[in-house]
């Protein structure tokens, strides 16, 4: 394998009339890694992807995909990448098999090769039973899977996914994530745009946050979370009447304490697990009943709020309480390393 990065955006600009949709965006995606392009609707994610995939010509700047310049050698780019667009762009009146054949043949694959891999792809994306049904009869999740299968038929080393899980139910979403992880294990480089903070957190090695066409932050999920502020210890009391006494206790351990009476919740700034242990011990000694006590690290959602001053439009799935905790404990160890 050659040593050039899989994807490079070099000072990309796209203007539509007076409106600058993408304003000097640059980033590099090393081979075999996943870049999450995170931002709200209209931030310029799709326009960036359209330029990198040669669908749209940059106003200025350029980029490279698998070493091919997107402006000077668009055909080289098209031979090296697959694209799954925002709406599942499969042909509704064709069957899954015909869709694969259409794109396979137009990708420059031989008839024999296309028919050899078709069954494998259908099987892999759990579409074998529906292979000869027209796509119109498919569910949203099936369409997405077919869309991805179609994008993979020429085994591109670089894959662009524009909001691949928008509109999917949580189960189809996590299934798709699993598929994408599999691809990365096989060596494919992914660039995915998403509004879902959780998705970027789950899949991406590096995240580039864009808002209003410019890159406002970049780094690993852990680095970004670290930027948003320190961790805090959150205590939820069983009985609201203990609030005043409990708040005083917490103040003895932490300089900054915030009380939310309605939620019977006390939040204290903390620097790590030791603070949580200390506050836990204080409560145990005082006899105040506690429903929950834990360390909360900032989520990507907080990062987004911190960077842009507003929440990501769609926070669906971003703050699922389960699953999060495990990630945070792991994140804790990585912080020290990432802070540098």
């Amino acid at each position, binding site marked *: 394998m050659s040593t050039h990065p899989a994807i490079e955006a070099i000072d990309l600009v796209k203007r539509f009339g007076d409106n600058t949709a993408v304003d000097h965006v640059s980033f590099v995606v090393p*081979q075999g890694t996943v870049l999450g392009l995170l931002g709200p609707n209209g931030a310029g994610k799709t326009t960036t992807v359209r330029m990198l995939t040669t669908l749209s010509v940059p106003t200025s700047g350029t980029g490279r995909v698998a070493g091919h310049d997107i402006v000077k050698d668009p055909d080289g780019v098209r031979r090296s990448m697959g694209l799954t667009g925002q709406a599942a762009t499969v042909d509704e009146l*064709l069957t899954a098999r015909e869709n694969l054949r259409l794109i396979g043949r*137009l990708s420059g694959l031989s008839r024999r*090769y296309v028919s050899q891999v078709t069954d*494998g*792809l259908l099987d*892999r994306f759990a579409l074998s039973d529906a292979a000869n049904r027209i796509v119109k009869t498919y569910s949203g999740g099936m369409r997405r899977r077919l869309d991805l299968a179609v994008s993979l038929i*020429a085994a591109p*080393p670089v894959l662009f996914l524009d909001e691949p899980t928008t509109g999917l139910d949580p189960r189809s979403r996590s299934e798709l994530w699993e598929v994408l992880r*599999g691809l990365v294990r096989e060596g494919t480089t992914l660039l995915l745009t998403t509004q879902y903070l959780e998705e970027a957190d789950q899949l991406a090695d590096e995240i580039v946050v864009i808002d209003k066409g410019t890159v406002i932050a970049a780094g690993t999920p852990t680095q970004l979370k670290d930027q948003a502020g320190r961790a805090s210890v959150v205590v939820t009391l069983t009985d609201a009447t203990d609030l005043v006494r409990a708040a005083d206790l917490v103040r003895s351990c932490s300089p900054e304490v915030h009380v939310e009476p309605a939620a019977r919740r006390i939040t204290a700034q903390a620097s790590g697990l030791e603070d949580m242990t200390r506050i836990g011990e204080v409560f145990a000694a005082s006899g105040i009943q506690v429903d929950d006590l834990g360390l909360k690290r900032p989520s990507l959602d907080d990062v987004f709020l911190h960077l842009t001053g507003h929440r990501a439009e769609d926070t669906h799935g971003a703050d699922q309480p389960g699953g999060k905790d495990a990630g945070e404990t792991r994140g804790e160890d990585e912080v020290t390393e990432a802070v540098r």
Partner: protein
Amino acid sequence: MTTLSLPTAVAGAEERPEIRPPSLVRASGTIVWRNLIHIKRMPEMLMDVTVQSVMFVLLFAYVFGGSIAVSGSSYREFLLPGIMVQTMVFSSAIVAMGLTNDLQKGIVDRLKSLPISRASVLVGRSISSLIHSSIGVAVMGVTGLLVGWRIRTGLAEATLGFLLLLLFGFAMIWLGIWVGSMMRTVEAVQGLMFTVMFPLTFVANTFAPTENMPNVLRVVAEWNPVSALAQACRELWGNAPAMPADAAWPLQHAVLMSVAWALVLTAVFAPLALSAFRRRSRD
């Protein structure tokens, strides 16, 4: 979905299959194949050129035909070439709707992300539309034969008549690509094209001779490219009524003029169409 080992043929970057970007002809052919499957899956797409055309033949032959006098020819003989011309003119609407639909659904984007010539998207669309319209012409030909229309000339002239129809259809396709590249929804295309196409095909000698039209209208009708083509087909197939001596010049030289019109329309609309499609494709 939980067991996720890739079949070796679609594995990582190192073992990619051989990729030979298809030629314009092969890519266009593949796109035509796809468009023809659409027609097969939705035969109602053909309604406009089949059921509707047959209905027109029957309506004009039996309802209006009795009241329209055509000197030196039977009305049904006069009518058939006219309706075939109308069908070819409507191929522009078929192209435009197909193209807008593909643009709207992101299919064009997907095709553009592949290593094919972008022209193949248009060439494929045009060829399948010509096939679509030709099916209509064939259905009408059969209906015509049943109601008494005949080609009364030799094979060469008969063929030339059909080639003229195709040439004109080709010119109209550029108009369709132009409109299709500019419009955002299929409904808008449909609205616009039908508003333009109906006067274009009716203010002509398509369904009735121009002699009895009011003066201004008659001039417009006789200079309408549609009239020259209809007249040319009638002459080539031996269906032409006697031409009044005061008919406009294009009708006196109908075959020549329909070729000329096709070339002029192509020269006007092809650059417009290509620049509109390219503009739509850049963003």
